[in-house]
């Protein structure tokens, strides 16, 4: 009896392992970052773009106010595409836009802003990309919707018309 049970036991274990790995093969191996939300904003210090002055995160964000922190760069093509939407959003009084200029030169960034307009209330000049990492960003463009010091929504990649309407709904 014992001798009969053993092969069945071994075969069933191998079948289980096979199913387990076979299922694993079908999973995508491309990592899609999970958009962590409802996290507190990180504390950081950064250089202001227009003033050559170091400023702390506590000086940026007030409570009871919506903020959209947008990471952008003049060399990033999708940033150029989403810029008109940001310009539109900048006209809304319910929200303040803060930019993080990611791994850029000041001359190129200034040209970008003079060509397409400046929707940002303040811009942090992030020459080495350190501030973007402190926010847990993957690259450019990326945007964080903030209220009461909490990240309530995160958008990886460029904003589009649909996301723009979503933001407008949220900040009403």
């Amino acid at each position: 009896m014992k001798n009969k049970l053993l092969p069945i036991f071994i075969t069933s274990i191998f079948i289980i392992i096979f199913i387990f790995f076979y299922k694993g093969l079908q999973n995508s191996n491309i990592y899609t970052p999970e958009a962590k939300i409802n996290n507190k904003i990180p504390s950081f210090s950064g250089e202001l773009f227009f003033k050559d002055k170091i400023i702390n995160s506590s000086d940026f964000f007030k409570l009871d106010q919506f903020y959209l922190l947008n990471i952008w760069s003049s060399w990033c093509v999708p940033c150029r595409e989403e810029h008109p939407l940001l310009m539109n959003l900048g006209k809304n009084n319910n929200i303040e836009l803060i930019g993080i200029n990611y791994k850029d030169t000041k001359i190129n960034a200034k040209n970008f802003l003079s060509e397409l307009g400046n929707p940002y209330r303040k811009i942090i000049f992030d020459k080495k990309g350190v501030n973007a990492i402190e926010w847990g960003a993957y690259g450019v463009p990326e945007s964080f919707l903030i209220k009461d010091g909490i990240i309530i929504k995160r958008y990886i990649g460029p904003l589009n018309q649909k996301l723009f309407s979503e933001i407008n709904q949220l900040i009403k």
Partner: protein
Amino acid sequence: MKILKLSFIFLLIFSFNSLKASNVDMNSKITKNLRCLICQGQSVYDSDSEFAISIKVIVDKKLEEGFSENQIYDFFKEKYGDWILYDPVLNKNTYILWLLPILIFLIGGAIISKTFIIKKK
């Protein structure tokens, strides 16, 4: 006295060098265990993407600030989740990964010993 001063200066320079060298070693060790999230299958150490370069700068900065290896891992884990570490922590998502080899080893051992015992008998 002059010799004493000179040797003190040498010692100072040497100690700074070794401090810098140990930071470089630690930086390589840490960045080898961090996954580059935007370039699949590469560690931060191997990658030259903008993301990886920024991570390397931060690891350097944190080491200079006196952060320990684990504190640096925790910092990145908080920002990007467990996936950024090549060495996964034991939690409800990874317990099979950790327990399966032990289980297979035990079952294999049991089978081998059982066969031997049966044969001996």
